[in-house]
């Protein structure tokens, strides 16, 4: 079953067209990695999926239902978690409360049950010892893993990752990637915007290359990385893989 079906999606900021005629689907259990040069529209595309950005044109079907109202969007977001480049943890809450809060507020889950779920998730991301700490005292890598646990606490069917490792010190990147790999292995549907080509090659079921607001090329990671068909994909990969 397709989780997302996107038809003729366009997004402009004023006169600036960021996305032009995007068509794609994401299937259940699939890990889609979106790569491309900065300014190619890949983050905007991801943010259109959970309607943090309102598309200028086009249709978004989530689980075969057209999303066309604020209520639809809100319901979709409860089922599609997002992890941000800058973590965006709630600074006034402890790590534990960050993870427990949305299920209690939005799903009316009891405090006891929410805490149980939250503690399990903190174990899963290796941060059970930090439950009572505040986000500001954690490293970037730890904060990002809390952010992943926070998104998972809503028990989403899918996760969106918007450059989850771009704001991290190099030695912290791997801890976050390991958590993401485990999620992928466990069958989570994921859409990941990243510059981590290693992750794309190892974990993705499908790699999408975007440039200047268009999807230029998509395919299995082996095909995209070994013999990219489009010239722009070739140039981009040469540049990032050389470094």
């Amino acid at each position, binding site marked *: 079953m397709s989780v997302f079906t996107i038809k003729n999606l366009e997004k402009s900021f004023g006169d600036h067209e960021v996305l032009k005629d995007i068509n794609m689907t994401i299937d259940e259990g699939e890990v889609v990695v979106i790569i491309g040069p900065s300014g190619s529209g890949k983050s905007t595309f991801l943010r259109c999926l959970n309607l943090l950005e309102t598309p200028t044109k086009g249709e978004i079907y989530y689980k075969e239902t057209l999303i066309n109202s604020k209520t639809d969007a809100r319901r979709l977001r409860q089922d599609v978690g997002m992890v941000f480049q800058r973590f*965006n943890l709630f600074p006034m809450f402890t790590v534990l409360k960050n993870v427990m809060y*949305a299920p209690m507020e939005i799903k009316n889950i009891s405090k006891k049950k929410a805490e149980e779920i939250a503690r399990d998730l903190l174990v899963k991301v290796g941060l059970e010892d930090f439950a009572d700490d505040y986000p500001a005292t954690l490293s970037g890598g730890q904060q990002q893993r809390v952010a992943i646990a926070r*998104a998972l606490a809503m028990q989403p069917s899918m996760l969106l990752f918007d450059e989850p490792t771009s704001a991290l010190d190099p030695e912290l990147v791997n801890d976050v990637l390991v958590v993401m790999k485990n999620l992928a292995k466990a069958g989570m549907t994921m859409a990941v915007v990243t510059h981590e080509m290693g992750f794309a090659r190892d974990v993705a079921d499908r790699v999408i290359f975007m440039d200047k607001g268009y999807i230029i090329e998509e395919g299995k990671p082996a095909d995209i990385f070994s013999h990219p068909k489009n010239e722009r994909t070739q140039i981009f990969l040469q540049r990032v893989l050389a470094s």
Partner: protein
Amino acid sequence: MDVVLNIAAKYGDIFIMGTKITIITSAVATVFGLLLGILLALFRMNLFNFKPLYWLTIIYVEIIRGTPLLVQIALAFFGLPLLGIHFPSVEFMGVEFDRMFAGIFALTINMSAYACEIIRSGIQSIDPGQMEAAKSLGFSTWRAMRKIVLPQALKNLLPVLGNEFIVMVKASSQVSVIGLADLMFSATTVQGISFQPFPPLVIVAVIYLIITVIISSLIRLMENNLSKSNGR
């Protein structure tokens, strides 16, 4: 010095009464002014996607900030009855309720206009990522504002809002012009009955100072209590 103490002892009841009225008036006006200010700030940011409210708020803030508080107090007292809004002139804690209401009303309105701009800047200083993170978890804009963004903004604004409270305590002295028996009014009263122009003023100045020092200490205490999430 002796004269001051004598006057303070002799007319103590009047000063205590005035102090009560000043505290009640300014505290109530600050609380309601803040609440109204929060609402106005949300209108001003067009959170509810309703442009007329946005424009009305801008006009409201300009008018209130652009006219003297003294005029606003007089307008509330003499103007509200002309508009057909009457309040029962019952005794409440030894003051007439209609004067009290007019005073609190004017101070609240005045406070709300300043609070609107302060709170708006506080909200806008919070990383937009906070709103996005809350939304991405399924919060509505309004709920995310109420539960996630606003608490952080108010925490950051605590020193400024404490300052506004202090300004309010002092500004509330102007309600004495409509005969509300606040602290300033008690000074005038005692001046009249004791034929001593100077000592009552010293006494109320000291009382104002004590009130404002207590407020700033409380605010500092609250700040320290709330700082545990600041990290490092």
